[in-house]
C-alpha cells in the first residue's frame, strides 16, 4: 500500500472519531444516565462525569492528531509510528470490551440504537486495522 492511500485511510479514521463522539453523546439518553447516577454518592457521580468528559476529550485529541499528522503516520515517522502502535492497542482493547464485557442488549430498544451500536463496533474494528497497518507498514513505500 502506498503512502497516499494510507494517508487517506488515516484521515477517514480521524473523521470516524466524530461518529464515536456522537455515539458517546447519545449514550446518556439511551441508558438514562442522569437517573441512574443520581443514586451514586456525589463524589462518585462527579468522578463518573469527569471520566466521561475526558474520554470525549481523548476522542477529539486522537482524531485531531490523526487528521493533522496522517501523512507523518503513513510515512512512518518515529513519533507518529509510536502513536499508531499505542492507538492500535487502545482500540483493540476497546474492541475486546465491546465484544466480551458490555451487554447492552436491554438498551438497544429501537432500530436506530441497534444500527448505531453495530456501526460503532465496525468503527472500532476499522481503527484497529488502520492504526495497526500504519504501525506495521508506515513508510514502507
Amino acid at each position, binding site marked *: 500500500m502506498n503512502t497516499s492511500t494510507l494517508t487517506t485511510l488515516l484521515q477517514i479514521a480521524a473523521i470516524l472519531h466524530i461518529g464515536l463522539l456522537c455515539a458517546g453523546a447519545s449514550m446518556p439518553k439511551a*441508558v438514562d444516565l442522569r437517573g441512574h447516577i443520581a443514586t451514586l454518592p456525589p463524589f462518585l457521580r462527579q468522578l463518573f462525569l469527569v*471520566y466521561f468528559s475526558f474520554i470525549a*476529550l481523548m476522542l477529539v485529541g486522537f482524531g485531531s492528531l490523526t487528521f*493533522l499528522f496522517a501523512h507523518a503516520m503513513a510515512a512512518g515517522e*518515529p*513519533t507518529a509510528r509510536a502513536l499508531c502502535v499505542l492507538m492500535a*492497542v*487502545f482500540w483493540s*482493547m*476497546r474492541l475486546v470490551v465491546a465484544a466480551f464485557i458490555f451487554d447492552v442488549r436491554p438498551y438497544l430498544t429501537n432500530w436506530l440504537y441497534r444500527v448505531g451500536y453495530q456501526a460503532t463496533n465496525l468503527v472500532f474494528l476499522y481503527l484497529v486495522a488502520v492504526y495497526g497497518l500504519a504501525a506495521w507498514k508506515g513508510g514502507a513505500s
Partner: protein
Amino acid sequence: MNVSSLSIFLRTAAALQLAVAILNLFLVPLFKWKADLMQAPLLLREVFQVHAWFISVTLAIFGLLSWRFAAEIASHASALGGWLAGGIGIFWAIRTILQVTYYSSSHWRGQLRRTVIHIVLLIAYGGMATTYLWAAFGSTP
C-alpha cells in the same frame, strides 16, 4: 529552560502519569466504593469501570510517548511532538481547573488527609500542565 532540563521534566511527568495510570486502576478498592457502585445498574457499573481502564490506558500512552520521545518533544524536533505536548498540556490544564472548580470542597475541607491529597494532586496536575504547555509553546535555547 534548556532542552536538557525540559527533557528531565518531561520524563518526570511521564513517570508520574504511569504512576497515576496504575493508581487509577485501584481507586474502587482503595476508597471502598464497591458498595456504592453496587447501587447502580450493571451496565453503568461496567461503563464506570471501563472508563477508568481507558483513562489509565490513555495516561499510559501519554507516559510512554513522553518518556520515549522526551528529547524530541523538548527540542521541537517534530511538529507532531509539539502538538502532542500541546494536547497533553491542555488535558492536564483542564484537569487542574476541574480539581478547583468542579469537585466540591466539602470532599476535603476540614479533613487533613484529604486536604493534603487535594493539594498534592493540584500541584501534580498543574505541574504537568505547565511542563507540557512549556514544551509546546515555550522557547528553548
